[in-house]
């Protein structure tokens, strides 16, 4: 019913059409086919490697390397780097969540007496990433003699496990209310989001995360109602042919 090309394709072709219209309106007879192609290519490149909005290049490379340790790109299939998880995290940290728009960050900040109180630092997630990564880098260099991005995969796994288990004690801007375990849990969650959220958020490129586990994406896109399948043992034919949410092209 609503079988459309994937978002990336339709965006590229729409851009070309728009460009053609602009060129036509200006009556620029000198525009060559080559020029048009390069504009399309530029648009495709910008979609694949957008500029950073929050992370520094150093932070981006660091985050990407750590995300690859969580969900590696290997002979089994694509991982975090291919899926654009770094771009996903960059987008999240630059937006409402990373900037703490739904966080209650009013004082006072009392010492945490027991477990079960969650986030208790006067910082939004963006601040936490920014404060935590250099401190972690220092730990990794001291412990493993190199920066995380330079380590081999086995040592990277060890370094990340130091966070997960709390072996790496990393005071966040002097605070002990946010532990390395807390950072690991938040980061791992962000990586899962970047692999499995709709591609609209910059990760899960080519829907590689969905294809990996066999999640068919937005059920509304096919107009294919699940009630025909859910009470049967009939396999669903589109488990590995997911569709993202429908792009909106604007009203009239």
């Amino acid at each position, binding site marked *: 019913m609503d079988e459309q090309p994937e978002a990336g394709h339709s965006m590229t072709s729409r851009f070309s059409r728009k460009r053609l219209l602009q060129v036509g309106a200006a009556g620029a007879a000198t525009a060559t086919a080559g020029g048009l192609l390069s504009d399309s290519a530029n648009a495709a490149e910008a979609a694949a490697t957008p500029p950073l909005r929050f992370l520094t290049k150093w932070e981006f490379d660091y985050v990407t390397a750590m995300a690859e340790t969580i969900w590696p790109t290997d002979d089994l299939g694509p991982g975090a780097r291919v899926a654009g998880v770094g771009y996903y995290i960059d987008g999240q940290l630059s937006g409402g969540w990373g900037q703490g728009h739904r966080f209650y960050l009013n004082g006072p900040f009392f010492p945490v007496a027991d477990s079960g109180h*969650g986030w208790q630092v006067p910082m939004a997630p963006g601040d936490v990433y920014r404060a935590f990564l250099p401190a972690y880098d220092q730990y990794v260099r001291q412990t493993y003699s190199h920066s995380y991005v330079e380590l081999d995969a086995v040592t990277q796994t060890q370094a990340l496990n130091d966070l997960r288990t709390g072996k790496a004690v990393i005071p966040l801007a002097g605070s002990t209310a946010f532990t390395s375990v807390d950072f690991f849990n938040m980061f791992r969650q962000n990586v899962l989001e970047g692999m499995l959220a709709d591609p609209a958020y910059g990760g899960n490129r080519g829907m590689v995360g969905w294809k990996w586990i066999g999640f068919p994406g937005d059920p509304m896109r096919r107009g294919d109602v699940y009630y025909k399948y859910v009470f049967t043992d009939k396999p669903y034919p589109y488990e590995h042919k997911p569709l993202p949410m429908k792009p909106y092209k604007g009203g009239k």
Partner: protein
Amino acid sequence: MALKKVDAVIVGVGWVGGIIAHELTKQGLSVVGLERGRTAKRSTVSFQDDHDELRYAIRNELFQNTANETWSLRHNLGETALPMRQLGSFLPGTGLGGAGVHWNGQTWRFHPRDFTAYTSTVERYGKAAMPADMSLQDWGITYDELEPYYDRFEYMAGIAGKAGNINGRLIPGGNVFEGPRSREFPVQAQGATELSAMFQKATSDLGYHPFPGPSANLPVPYKNPDGVTRGQCTYCGFCERFGCEVGAKADPTVTVIPLALKTGKFEIRGYSHAYAIKNDGKTGQSVLYFDGSGRVQEQPADIIILAAYVFNNVRTLLLSKLGTPYDPNKGTGSVGRNYCYQTGGGGASGWFTGKRFKRYMGSGALSMAIDDFNADNFDHSGLGFIGGGSITSGQTGARPIQSLTVPPGTAPFGREWKAAIQKYYASVISVGFQGESPAYKMHHLDLDPNYRDSFGNPLVRITFDWQPNERKMIAFAGTKTLEIMKAINPDIISGGPGSLPAHYDSAVYQSTHNTGGAIMGADPDTSVVNSYLQMWDAPNVFVVGACNFPQNAGFNPTGTVGALAYRAAEGILKFHKTGGSLV
């Protein structure tokens, strides 16, 4: 200067506010609804863009924004409470329809014994069976008295299910432990999926009594007694935390609210944060609220109805200095008393190698259940705890960010984990337990001394933790879910005696089934409202919702909340005619 007086003002326009508004406006009363969130209706069409797990389920679009208002938590009376700085343990809704928009649709009736939990426990096991600090109370209303209101809610909402007890006649295939129904469910029960069929067979083989979970998600189209027709569920798998794009999920914005608006007697004001009732200690005169520009407005009314979420109803009473605040040290007062929650845990999981189930398909209430270990449906002698819970295997839609699963012993990340999530995402079956939350003397709600909301009013402070009774209950539940999982016989099993964390964790999602704080009862000294949800201290003020539960049962609360809303509406109309106390 006060606004023009109306017959009734309702704080919060969700299920309770919507039902009461509909009942009152039908009888010609003028009603104003104060809704703290948006009132622009999210139509079914606009929810066609809602299959976005990140936006709704992870970034919490439909829920209360904790930057503006949150809650603080302490685990005991001696601790300094800390604010919940982001959503976690529970997800109260905001905006038109409230949590009625994003709920799963699991619509239960509590057991007859739940309404007499104190008396029934003493009669069967003696007073000594309850820990000294436990403070169970009877509801001041019986199941039989509430039955007609359950019936009304279920027929309005179009609940799908199979009765297990009609007027005392037990019906196999339904829940034979439930209280007597006056008639069958309005809508046929949902079918069984591959997963729920396995649960059904295993529990039946074990001698238990499986039945399809009651659901507000229509398996077939339905026209309700008000003339509202809704279509059938597509089983898209985006239910809990999402709105329904086809209107198959019963929701106040597709049922009672449009009908109330159609009367021309109902005005809804959005972005209106009610915070207090102006009163003289005997009568509520008006509701004070911050309007969209942050200015205080005063809405006078003959009748005032608090229909917001548990915490906001209690906070409004405390800020209004209406009723007597509960004092946990002296045991006096009632506002804030008997705050309870829902005791989860003790589940079991099983993985089939080489099998895939369509777990991403489902609806919020698509499940098979047994009730053999709920309430007092089994003999507790020698078990060392009271209470129980429902055991279900549901298929609510395995949205990928929240639904990756691997067997125990799998590496937590990396290549091995990556291979495992591929292998097991669609091959898992789970059996869960949803337990009672009994009341305790120290558990309560009051105003936090340190933290305030964005308007400058104190936050609600929660005093709550897991107690030994619930730890034993969960340990017991884990042995039962494991027994069932073994009968299902998957290739890998994880389960065993269940356990609860060292302390109640406010940061991890568990359940949006908070209860109590403005409880109902027969005694004005130990309850805030009578059996019509009318305040003992101010007869023109009605406080309605899960805040009325003296303790929480082993079921989802909405069915009972809906029944109480219809009961309250009847009481309000009676009060409108006669005045005075209704009991």
